[in-house]
């Protein structure tokens, strides 16, 4: 299973897309917001936590269809399904590789983008903490969505539609954590909820995703 993880990382780096492009998209969405909303720093700093979380979520979303589609097309998924590792493990490794290759860089640069949006100084640490805690859930939910749509032609947009409502709780608690952190309020509850969601999805969704893949390979 480690082999799968390292292979997926190697592929993400070599294909040149995995790392850079998700990051670039995050950057661009965040940069577009001031153009759309206007440059007033007061408004920007109010909406910064939400926008940063939404930007991360969208970047994550856009790379989801790569999780299984390539392996499905070239037959690797068939072979993995007949390999001596449980499909649940495959799913978990896929989600982990997606997180490391696509989402982790976002988490790391998010403070820089916070600067662009005039995030309150107290919010930076909470931004990173909340993203680090919450985004694994996004990757895992997204992997589940990708497993549901793996056989479909041009499933990309359908995938977004299926996954977005599932992202709502994570988004709410994530943005709320940053907002409270930026305002100097207590962040205990939303942070705990974020961690809870991540643990819950990591524990349960691999089974649902593996079941979906088995059905789709049929």
């Amino acid at each position, binding site marked *: 299973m480690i082999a799968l993880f390292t292979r997926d990382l190697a592929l993400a780096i070599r294909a040149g897309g995995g790392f850079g492009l998700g990051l670039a998209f995050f950057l661009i969405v965040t940069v577009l917001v001031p153009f759309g909303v206007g440059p007033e720093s007061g408004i920007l700093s109010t909406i910064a936590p939400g926008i940063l979380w939404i930007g991360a979520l969208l970047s994550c979303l856009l790379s989801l269809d790569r999780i299984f589609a390539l392996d499905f097309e070239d037959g690797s998924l068939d072979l993995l399904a007949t390999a001596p590792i449980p499909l649940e493990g495959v799913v978990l490794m896929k989600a982990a590789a997606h997180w490391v290759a696509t989402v982790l860089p976002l988490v790391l640069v998010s403070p820089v983008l916070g600067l662009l949006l005039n995030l309150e100084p107290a919010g930076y640490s909470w931004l990173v903490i909340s993203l680090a805690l919450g985004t694994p859930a996004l990757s895992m939910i997204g992997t589940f969505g990708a497993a549901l749509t793996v056989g479909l032609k041009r499933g990309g947009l359908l995938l977004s539609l299926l996954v977005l409502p599932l992202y709502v709780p994570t988004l709410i608690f994530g943005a709320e954590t940053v907002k409270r952190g930026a305002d100097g309020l207590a962040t205990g509850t939303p942070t705990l909820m974020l961690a809870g969601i991540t643990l819950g999805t990591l524990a349960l969704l691999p089974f649902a995703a593996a079941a979906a893949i088995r059905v789709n*390979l049929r």
Partner: protein
Amino acid sequence: MDLSVTNLSCARGGLPVLEGVSFTLSPGKALLLRGPNGIGKTTLLRTLAGLQPALDGTVSVPAESIAYAAHADGLKATLTVTENLRFWARVFGTDGVQNALDAFNLNDLADRMAQNLSAGQKRRLGLARLLVTGRPIWVLDEPTVSLDVASVALFGDAVKAHLAGGGMALIATHIDLGFDAEVLDVTQFKAAPQRLDDFDEAFA
């Protein structure tokens, strides 16, 4: 341990394609599946490999003893030949990479990325993958497509070595593989069109 298939029925796209397939294959033997396009050879092999459920019937061995290779080779274009093989070796928990490179004459290409291989070389790499699975039963779908004569001979040698080691092979093909084996024409198992006299038959 024999591979015996009894009365197997399999479906594709919701419709039964083959019915009542039965045969036995003992260690050291190979069986060639023949039949016109669209008869259901691929469907049968996928069912045996555990990729889709059978409608009916039994297979005497677990899917875990079967190595399946189809048209799609599962190769990653941006990994080198060795990296591709090493990945599958690690997934299957074996270490026959060098052996596989030797058997399919891939040593010269070991550091080439898969995307820079010709179609025939890609196919050789796909077949080399079988050697690193370490599984006793090979289930192959059209293995020699786009191979030249020399490579077909390499493939024949690899199969013979596998059989000599007590393995089995089940191969669907339209063309000559350069070695002798029993032949099973699956046309005889073609599923009769459903009668659908009974209303519920539509709900398989």
